[in-house]
């Protein structure tokens, strides 16, 4: 009977051999875009100078020392694709690009509030805490099993003033298990590059 049990255990384990062996094997990049969006007609963007916290805060807290490097990476990718960054206090951009981060697992319920994560940013002048970001691809939540850095591209030209909503046109999520600060930044940088690389329509 013991032999039979041992054989059954080995057989079941054999159903899914292999799998992740190192931390980076668990890194992933997910992108989603609005199929109705005409990205060719969008060329200017504005972006806050901070990485916001996901509305569901988790512990440990997100380390903001990497914010400048993360935002520079996002900007470099957009610039390389021909986008032009504008100052939202003087020019209305085609899109607002916001970057969120979370060091631990989290669930983001859609539509989600964004205003309080970027206090005083002129790109969100005229909005308040009642405004939400919604995803036209109709997901009611996004689940992140590990730490994540998320980039959302919002339609800045057509805010839904009746429902107080901003429409997301594209989103990219870099997800992985946190390690050292330096390792995190390196993997986030690679993930951001990959998010844009797999979004050729941008």
């Amino acid at each position: 009977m013991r032999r039979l049990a041992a054989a059954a255990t080995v057989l079941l384990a054999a159903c899914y051999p292999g799998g992740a062996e190192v931390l980076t094997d668990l890194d992933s990049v997910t992108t989603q875009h609005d199929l109705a969006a005409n990205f060719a007609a969008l060329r200017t963007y504005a972006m806050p100078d901070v990485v916001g916290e996901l509305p569901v805060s988790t512990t440990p807290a997100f380390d903001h020392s990497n914010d400048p490097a993360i935002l520079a990476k996002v900007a470099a990718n957009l610039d390389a694709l021909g986008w032009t960054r504008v100052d939202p206090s003087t020019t209305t951009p085609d899109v607002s690009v916001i970057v969120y981060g979370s060091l631990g697992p989290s669930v983001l319920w859609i539509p989600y509030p964004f205003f309080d994560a970027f206090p005083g940013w002129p790109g969100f002048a005229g909005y308040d805490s009642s405004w939400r970001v919604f995803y036209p691809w109709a997901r009611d939540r996004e689940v992140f099993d590990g730490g994540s850095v998320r980039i959302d591209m919002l339609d800045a030209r057509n805010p839904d003033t009746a429902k107080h909503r901003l429409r997301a046109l594209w989103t990219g999520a870099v997800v992985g298990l946190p390690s050292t600060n330096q390792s995190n930044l390196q993997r986030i940088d690679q993930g951001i590059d990959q998010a844009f690389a797999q979004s050729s329509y941008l």
Partner: protein
Amino acid sequence: MRAHAPPRLAVLLLLALPASALAQSNIRLSYEMAVPSLGTSDFIDRFSSRGAHLDASIEVAPAFNFELSLGWNLFNAAKTGVLHISDGRDVSGKQFRYLNAIPAMGGFAFHIPLRGGGRIWFGANAGGAIIERLVDVGMGTYSRTQWQWGVMPQIGIAFGIDRKAGTAIFFSGRWEYYWEQAGSPKQSWFGIGVGFLFGAGRK
């Protein structure tokens, strides 16, 4: 009513068979390896060393056997690249791909006896398989399970190792093909089996 005639006929034929005619019936248990071909090789192109088959072979006429086959095959491979999950949604990262198949089939085969309790057989089965395609990317899992209809031509050769007990060792080859079903793509692979046959040559 006429639609019930073939199954009734088959049952009557089986009942009418004398015990001696069933002497060449056998059970085969095998370890299976497989090489992916059309369809499957697009998903996983790696040799599979995990699998098993249980075959029951019932002689319904001299040298002509009714076959029942139940099996399990597992393919796995690691890939990198972009996975298209749905319209507009893409996921990239290291992909750990798995294909689990549990075929269940029936068919017929000709069995030609050899000296010393051995035999050669060839035939074809039809039926289907429950096929699960699963991809682990990052910390997410994407899978799809579907019953797919298929066919399985097969050949085999057995060498008697204990004629009195009716035991033989055998080697078999199968080609399993499953049609596309409800959005699940076609699958196929060549299976190579080695195992034991019980009941051969019993008198």
